[in-house]
């Protein structure tokens, strides 16, 4: 169920890698090396600057994933997400709960627990409302081969550890990004897809061109991230096989309100496309529903909450 986990990863971004945790400070040197940049990227992608975050449906606004094969009707998933990074027991690192709010998965909930021990697998509990049962899921393998799917992002957000790649700075320069966005034919539009944003205007920024090469065999040979030199946000990632781009991921970022850290940015949409098959995905978080660092009892992130869904 890697797409399911993808969905969870997409709304959480809360998992730290080896050597990276919430204490990672902003780099003090002027020209950080490739490993340092990779750590900062990891910190931003996993939103380690947050205590918690709640993304709940508000009217028409909802966390939305759209997957679209070329010429086909888009498939839409929506859900709410509850993330808690605020643990100090030396055991749990974070808890993350996702509840699907539409379609065939409506009422299905997933609770993912990450442990401080990086070698320990994720604990994933799934509430299956039609069966009235909670099932435990194993952490998915990292070698599934995600090229066709929208899960390049899942690897980044959840499965990939910093130690699995070799990093290299290819260049530091100013670049303009024309971020992509899914175009849906009028006959395929529905009330959810109509809420997707327009593509953002071209954006110019100083970036590190960071090459990451997996140490073990992966579905791609290497990837190149274009990393903002100030905020460590990645605007674009290109994945390569035989030096040809096989997947492009574009991200649009906004500043998270109320947090001073220059890295406190969160993407509001993530667009990916396979240039060969034109398989596209959009993961969209409406800015209006983002609530960070709320006051919520930690017991909320539990199996019993899952079991109350849709009953």
């Amino acid at each position, binding site marked *: *169920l890697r797409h*399911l986990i993808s969905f969870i990863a997409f709304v959480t971004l809360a998992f730290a890698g080896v050597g990276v945790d919430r204490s990672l400070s902003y780099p003090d040197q002027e020209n950080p090396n490739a490993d340092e940049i990779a750590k900062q990227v990891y910190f931003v992608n996993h939103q380690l600057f947050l205590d918690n975050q709640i993304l709940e449906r508000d009217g028409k606004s909802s966390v939305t994933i759209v997957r679209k094969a070329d010429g086909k*009707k888009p498939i839409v998933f929506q859900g709410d997400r509850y993330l808690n990074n605020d643990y100090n027991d030396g055991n749990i690192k974070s808890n993350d709960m996702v509840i699907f709010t539409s379609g*065939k998965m409506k009422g299905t909930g997933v609770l993912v627990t990450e442990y401080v021990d990086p070698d320990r697998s994720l604990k*994933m509990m799934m509430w299956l409302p039609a*069966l009235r049962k909670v099932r*435990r899921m*194993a952490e998915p393998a990292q070698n*599934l081969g995600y090229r066709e799917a929208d899960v390049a992002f899942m690897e980044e957000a959840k499965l990939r550890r910093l130690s699995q790649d070799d990093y290299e700075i290819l260049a530091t320069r100013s670049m303009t990004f024309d971020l992509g966005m899914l175009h849906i034919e009028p006959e395929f539009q529905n009330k959810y897809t109509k809420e997707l944003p327009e593509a953002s205007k071209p954006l110019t920024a100083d970036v590190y061109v960071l090459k990451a090469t997996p140490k073990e065999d*992966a579905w791609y040979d290497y990837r190149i991230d274009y990393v903002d030199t100030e905020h460590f946000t990645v605007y674009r990632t290109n994945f390569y096989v035989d030096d040809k781009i096989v997947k492009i991921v574009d991200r649009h970022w906004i500043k998270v309100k109320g947090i001073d850290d220059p890295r406190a940015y969160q993407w509001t949409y993530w667009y990916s496309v396979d240039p060969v098959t034109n398989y596209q995905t959009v993961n969209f978080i409406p800015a209006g529903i983002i609530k960070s660092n709320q006051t919520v009892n930690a017991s909320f992130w539990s199996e019993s909450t899952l079991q109350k869904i849709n009953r």
Partner: protein
Amino acid sequence: MVEKKGFSFRYAALVMKFRWFILAFSIVITVLAAWQIQYVDIRNDPDTLLPQTNKYVSTNNYIEETFGMGNIYVIGIELQEDAGSVYQPWFVNTVREIHNKLENMDGANKPNFISVAAQKVKNMGVDEDGSLIFKRLIPNDGISTTDPELAQEQLAFMKEGIDNNPVLKPMILHEVNPETGEKCINNEPNCVAKATFVIADFDNSVKEHYVEWVRQAVADLEPYYNDDRLKISIAGEPYFLAWMMVQLVDHWYLFVASVLIALLILYVETRSIKGALFPMISVGMSIVWTLGLMGFTGFKLTTMMVLTPMLILAVGMGHAIQVTRRYMKGIRDGETVELASFSALGFTIIPATLSIITDAIGFATLATVDISFYKAYAYFGMFGMFSLLITTTTLIPLMMVMFKDKQQKVLPEAYKWEIKLGDFVAKLLGGPGKFVPIGAVIVILALSVHYTKMDEGIANIVNDDRYSGIEKVVVLSQGDTYDLMPGVQKGIDYAQAAFKVQSQPVQDIFALNEIMPGVISFNIPIRAKKPLLPECGDAYFDALYAAEDAGTAPPEKNCYDPEMDKPQGIMNKAEVIGAMEKMEDDLREHPYIGFTASYAQYIKIANMLLITEPGNQPSLADFKVPTKEYLLAKNPDDDRSPDDIVSMYNGLLEMASNPGDLSSAVSQNYNNGVIMGFVNTMHPDETHAALKFIQDYIETHKNDPGFNQLNFGFRNADASGDVGEIADDTSPAYITPGVGGFLGATEATRDITFDNWILNPLGTALAIFLVVSLIFRSFIVAGMLMTILFITLFAQYGLAGYYSAQAFWSGNLHFGNLVALSIAMGLGVDYSIYMISRLREEMQEHGNWTQALRNTVATTGSSVLISVVVLIGAFIPLMATDLGNTWGLSVYITEAIVIDVFTALTILPLLILWTKPRYVFGPR
């Protein structure tokens, strides 16, 4: 002396006058046509072969358009007996390598690939912590070759994944019992896995470049063919069809040999280079014109169309020999070149026209059959035949004049064997020897009755009391209610119809049929009777929110709200999925059905994994669709909704899958699906029986819960047949739904053959009868020709019966061979027409029957014999490749021509002598 006047000699004078213009015109047309040859579109596409309105064809088209898997290519990778099991690193990595090579080919539909290396084939189970796992069977980079311990771990994981997947295991693994050597089919313990398969799917773009595609496919597999540890077998529609084209391309030298044989015979016959070259050039023109027309029209052709140029060559040579010999006779009689050419034109244009008309009739009647290659034969065959009137009968004498030698050569006399032949036949037919050919014909007819089992067929028809009178004749003429010749197999084994039985493709398919659950696919559409509601738009929600704000009643709702409503689509209904499950179980009980799969299998796996209590290992007892019956059997108090459970499984599967993973089993809107499967036999009777079983099952269960919400295959060209008289099973017009896949195509082909096997040749015979009656103004002559044609036709049915008795499916009366009957009929009557014309000429000249017969056989008769040799020479390339279809055509046409020539030289003179028609003997 015969008078040289009348229309034919006026025509001769006209063309002699404008001979340079005619030659220039012919050359210009030839150049233009040659340019168009590059556009000849031979794509061998069976999708365009059969009538698109046939219910089996339309059903299959629907399935391919909706669910894909239209161009499946299968590689069987089998270990030699002493090479252990498939669970070895080198073997699994080899399979992965083959899989990856295929994925990298142009047109590969990667999401539809199935093998142990496919991304979508996973180990689905429970780990030691009780957690559900979904992992690829083998790592991205294959099984470790450096760490034996890790490799064993990876192989064990792969084995566990395959053993726990009852859906895919039979499709990707072949196991045998090491003690008995028998195939294991039900996960029996202690079986050894000896083979696995890569099932690949390609889009239609491969059809545009079949030859290059298949050459690459075969080249990619070359290293594995050479591996002593492996046995590689390949099959599948794109491979089969592409390889047929390769057979023709790679045997180009056989076509050259045909032409050289024709040249040699012409040279020997005329003892002149011009006498050999001119006919070859002129017939070559006709071939170029016809091929050019094929290119110009853009008609989609098959490899079977190679028959057309070869027939033009053979028939053209026959006409060329007739006109050349007539020219030579003039020269021998002391005429000048101009006069000899004039005479040759005048004397041959009428019989040539008549025989070409009958040739064309043989082709023309094929246009009445709604099969693309029948129509192609009809159009291009007719064109090619008529073009011979210009290029051979007219142009050869003209070229003799235009390119004459400065000094008239003395032509040698006729060959002695020709004169001896004339003497022999005249003597034979003039005495008791006449009973030899009569006896031969009786033997042919008797053998034909024996092999066709016509006596049995007639008895069955006479004794059947369902119909009577003319109604019985109508039923007999169409469909398979009655079979006049039960010994003649009208069904088709597509593999052997395409390739000879000893060819590699057929041997491979035999091998795969042994180790796979079957190689003949079928598919049954599952289509909801009720269409989906459209998704609610802004107008509805605006009205709804306004009503909520105003506290009034909500607006009428005729749309679907994915947020509030239960999921739409028939595949969210447990009752429907449960009925599919039962159907699959029942189908698998049939001895000829080896495997089935459908979306129900995905639901069963999801249920097995998810309904198991946490910590327990999944049990095959839960490999079930969660219907009400199943839930209550487990717990009588269970009040969970089966539909909700199925919908939730659908959602989980949808989210867990890659694009294309589910699309071959269920439509994106969940309102349509397909049950697919394989039949484990290729025998025409057995495939027919399997199809009838499927159709009977649907008829018996179509009103069962679940199935009563569905339509199945089409009854006509499209979904319009879901309602109306043909969908009403109380109406006599009711039609059972079609079934798709190769099984459907096989049945469609059988239906077409049954509808045409009598009517089409009879239609040709009738047309020839009418034309011949008009031409000769003699029903007696026409009747004689019909007698000869029917002897030949019945002998062809006899041949079909013989091959059927041998279970030799390249030679039975499938629709590919059926086409030969009409063509042969048109061609075969040529010889009789030439014989009658010459007999008439000789009788007018000599007035003595014996003399006329002797001369006719010595001249026209010997020409006819030479024509047959040329024809057989032209068929060398068609017979000598691995192709079964061109072989079948060649054999049937050759048999017919040989019998036609035999009867034209022996039986026809006897009939003429006995009936003394005025056309030959003049007024009494």
